[in-house]
């Protein structure tokens, strides 16, 4: 399994003329800002850049096309320029994709199937058209496309990307429909009611699937990982007033077991708990 290191560029510039000139990034979908939904799809990126004049969470960079208002292709280039140490891949997303988290998952699932000479992967919409702002590009190829093209101001993203060999990716159950009109927004919200909080992600089987997937990616044996024992340990740490050290204790347990593959996990946990019980907790201030 290839580990994909990537930066993410999210285009949130421009106003939705057919939305009554509201900022599409700030549209509310079941209580969550549309931009924040799209940003969830970028989690794991080395650098995330939002191009536009919107509020972004800590750790996300903001960029603006030069001059302002010259369109998404110029915005993409501004975003690319804002990344200090470029990763191998660049995820490019429009900010008006309410199903971005699922759609992006499709892109990453397809990376391993991409031929080495492909310049990137691009989701297809329901009509079969490539959506260049729901795409994962090789950063070098994306840079080259802009070099070949010249000034991207007021040009289409499709035009700039025309020189690239992109692997079309079928979105499957995910949607790459963007939200251009109030009617589309209303339809999307009506057909995607807010899920009961974390019903899916609190499911023990979902947890196990995560552990197995993560172990696959790391070359670890998932059979040897007991997530419930880890949680018992971290709960105990938290109850002892060392809550910030809960993940640290879990990490230390991993280090200890990883470097002593023959150790009995139960004994190791007991030893760790003893250490934690006698560890100095800093005074609260």
């Amino acid at each position, binding site marked *: 399994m290839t580990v994909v290191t990537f930066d993410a560029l999210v285009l949130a510039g421009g106003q939705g003329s057919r939305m009554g000139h509201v900022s599409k990034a700030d549209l509310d979908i079941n209580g969550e800002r549309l931009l924040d939904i799209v940003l969830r799809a970028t989690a794991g990126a*080395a650098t995330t850049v939002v191009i536009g004049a919107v509020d972004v969470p800590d750790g996300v960079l903001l960029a603006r096309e030069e001059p302002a208002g010259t369109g998404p292709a110029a915005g993409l280039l501004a975003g690319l320029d804002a990344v200090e140490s470029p990763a191998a891949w660049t995820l490019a997303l429009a900010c008006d994709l309410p199903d971005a988290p699922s759609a992006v998952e499709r892109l990453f699932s397809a990376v391993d199937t991409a031929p080495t000479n492909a310049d990137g992967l691009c989701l297809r919409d329901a009509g079969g058209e490539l959506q260049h702002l729901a795409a994962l590009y090789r950063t070098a190829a994306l840079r080259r496309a802009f070099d070949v093209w010249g000034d991207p101001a007021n040009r289409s993203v499709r035009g700039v990307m025309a020189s690239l060999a992109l692997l079309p990716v079928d979105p499957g159950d995910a949607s790459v429909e963007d939200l251009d009109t109030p009617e589309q927004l209303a339809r999307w919200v009506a057909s995607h009611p807010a899920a009961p909080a974390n019903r899916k992600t609190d499911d023990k089987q979902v*947890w196990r699937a995560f552990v197995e997937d*993560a172990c696959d990616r790391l070359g670890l044996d998932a059979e040897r990982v007991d*997530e419930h024992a880890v949680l018992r340990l971290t709960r105990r740490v938290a109850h002892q007033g060392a809550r910030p050290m809960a993940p640290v204790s879990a990490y230390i*347990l*991993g280090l200890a077991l990883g470097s002593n593959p023959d150790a009995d996990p139960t004994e190791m946990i007991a030893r760790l708990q003893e*250490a934690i019980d006698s560890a100095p907790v800093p005074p609260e201030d």
Partner: protein
Amino acid sequence: MDRRDVDAAAWRPWIEHVCAQTAVDPALIDLPDLLQLTATVADGFTRPMAPVAAHLWGLARASDPQGTPSSQAQALAAAAIRAGA
């Protein structure tokens, strides 16, 4: 409290103590990187799996000392995002 705002200096004695008792090299513990990973997992997937991701990172680092820690963290983040999508 933002999980990324943990006072690393104040907790260093705690970390040193626990590492000494379990024969783990405390130099392997980079608190900001670890908290970054757990924040990504909590935000992108679900809070209970954040310490489990930390655990898996420790396992991976110790099992494969030649591996690149940042790539391992990246793989964990990617798994969490997929699970949370």
